[in-house]
């Protein structure tokens, strides 16, 4: 049993580090483990589990949120949000780093994917930060760190997957991320401020208030998107998936008729792009189901559970242990794979200790988002370093203070469930 898990995890990590795409690494290691330890099982289960893992109406929300984000981007929304953020916080020392964070926070309300946000905002913000005299490594690091807010402020792709796994309301999960997302933004800005003061980074100008209001009115339509999504789910008008489709419709309508920058030809390109993004994310979800099944039947989950509960039955201690565990998982694994494989193992343990599944979902997702900033499997680092042209090692070093800030936010969320659960409890009965 233990040997089986060692072979499974070892071969997966080995293949990932050797540069095989994650989806094939997870697939090959699962297949290898079945061939060695489960000779009697029919191999039909391989395609069956991969298909079965994505056969869910709830997951269909994922391409919709990809589409909505891309459509808003094409409609010229990103530049408008950047301009508005610049007027709002550009005057603080280290101006553009704060603009980057605030842009990510506003954009988080449209998109639900950290990786997509880092690419969309980074390709715009990182070059302008470098032009303004910020080092490329720092620009890439703040952009990568701020992109983790994307799946915390609703909508959120990992929370949709958690909701399916844990069988809890996606609407409640979405709401649980509102305050933590604001905390993340604030903490990142505080850290960026101190770094900027010490290194003497430039600052811009605050915009005169009337101009800011005028810009704000135009950006207001972007703020409206999460309100429609969350409001619609909570009022029972539509499901999370339908809210995604409505968000697509909404962004098409304002792109065509309000901003008038969206063209039908762009729209077709966006759909083709979303096809590929959806395929890469969801095939990974599919193979992770196969991988998760092997982990589940190996019984290693029960063993780990026993070990955890033998150390302490105090939920605060158990949560700390699990957060350390998920932090390590986040270093080596894709967040979605981490959720699919480990949430079914740990959720029963924590709920038996009285932890609310929505609270556990938020802290686990937040933790795995920080994992996108930690090498070796720290996908955001690679994206932003590629955009900036700076070496990954430099970006990693620049990112450390931001990672510390996000870990602080995580600890606040772990030990202050009242803050996390305020909105879900208030609205989502």
């Amino acid at each position, binding site marked *: 049993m233990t040997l089986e898990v060692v072979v499974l995890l070892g071969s997966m990590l080995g293949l990932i580090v050797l540069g*095989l*795409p994650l989806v094939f690494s997870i697939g090959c290691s699962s297949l290898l483990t079945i061939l060695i330890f489960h000779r009697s099982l029919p191999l039909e289960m391989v*395609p069956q589990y991969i298909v079965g893992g994505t056969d869910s109406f709830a997951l269909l929300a994922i391409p919709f949120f990809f589409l909505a984000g891309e459509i808003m981007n094409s409609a010229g929304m990103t530049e408008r949000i950047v301009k508005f953020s610049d007027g709002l916080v550009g005057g603080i020392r280290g101006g553009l780093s704060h603009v980057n964070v605030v842009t990510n926070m506003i954009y988080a309300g449209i998109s639900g994917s950290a990786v997509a946000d880092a690419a969309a905002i980074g390709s715009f913000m990182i070059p302008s930060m470098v032009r303004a005299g910020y080092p490329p490594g720092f620009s890439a690091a703040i952009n990568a760190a701020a992109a983790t807010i994307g799946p915390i402020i609703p909508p959120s792709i990992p929370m949709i997957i958690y909701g399916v796994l844990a069988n809890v309301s996606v609407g409640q999960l979405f709401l649980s991320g509102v305050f933590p997302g604001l905390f993340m933004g604030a903490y990142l800005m505080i850290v960026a401020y101190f770094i900027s003061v010490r290194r003497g980074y430039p600052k811009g100008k605050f915009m005169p208030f009337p101009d800011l209001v005028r810009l704000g009115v135009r950006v207001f339509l972007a703020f409206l998107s999460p309100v429609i999504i969350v409001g619609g789910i909570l009022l029972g008008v539509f499901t999370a998936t339908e809210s995604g489709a409505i968000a697509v419709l909404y962004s098409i309508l304002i792109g065509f008729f309000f901003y008038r920058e969206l063209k039908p030809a762009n729209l077709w390109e966006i759909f083709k792009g979303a096809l590929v993004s959806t395929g890469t994310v969801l095939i990974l979800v599919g193979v992770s189901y196969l991988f998760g099944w092997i982990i589940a039947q190996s019984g290693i989950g029960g063993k780990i559970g026993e070990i955890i509960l033998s150390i302490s039955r105090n939920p605060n201690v158990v949560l700390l242990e699990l957060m350390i565990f998920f932090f390590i998982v986040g270093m080596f694994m894709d967040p979605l794979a981490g959720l699919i494989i480990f949430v079914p193992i740990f959720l029963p343990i924590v709920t038996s200790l009285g932890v609310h599944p929505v609270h556990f979902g938020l802290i686990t997702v937040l933790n795995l988002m920080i994992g996108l900033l930690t090498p070796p499997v720290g996908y955001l680092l690679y994206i932003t370093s590629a955009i900036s042209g700076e070496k990954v090692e430099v970006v990693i070093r620049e990112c450390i203070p931001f990672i510390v800030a996000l870990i602080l936010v995580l600890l606040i969320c772990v030990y202050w469930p009242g803050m996390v659960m305020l909105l879900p409890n208030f609205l989502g009965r």
Partner: protein
Amino acid sequence: MENPSGSGSFLERVVETVGGLVLVAATSITILQVVFRYLLKIPFIWSEEFTRFLFIWIVWLGAALAVPRGKHMVIEFVRDLFPEPWPGRIKMATDLLALFFLAVVVVKGISLVNMTATEFYVTFPLSVKYAYLASVVGGALMFFFLSQELRSTFRRLKSREKKT
């Protein structure tokens, strides 16, 4: 990755167009589902199950297209730390493993299609085998795209050997 024969790029365009249209269809049906339920008070009974079926095809066609486009999540910098020609050799070895995995997906997917031929969806008259067919088609496309990539890696290694 550039394509030596050029046939891949045509195939890519076909996959992209078909997959894109399926995504447009799934999006439109879901929007119409809300509109019909709330504005016209006519709920669809088939739409959720049908879009779930379309979704499986979206996933497999999109995943297949991501292979030649280099969009699958991958961490290459460790491999590239090795001295030449090792990165190319390692890539060939790991890609071969991935081809083996894909071959299992396709072959076993075909038998899964045969096994589920008599299972039908509840709300519309279609066999469930057409959902599993997505894994066969998608898996075969990935196999094809990846084997082309393997071939061009092999050629690159060969031409480098000749130079030295």
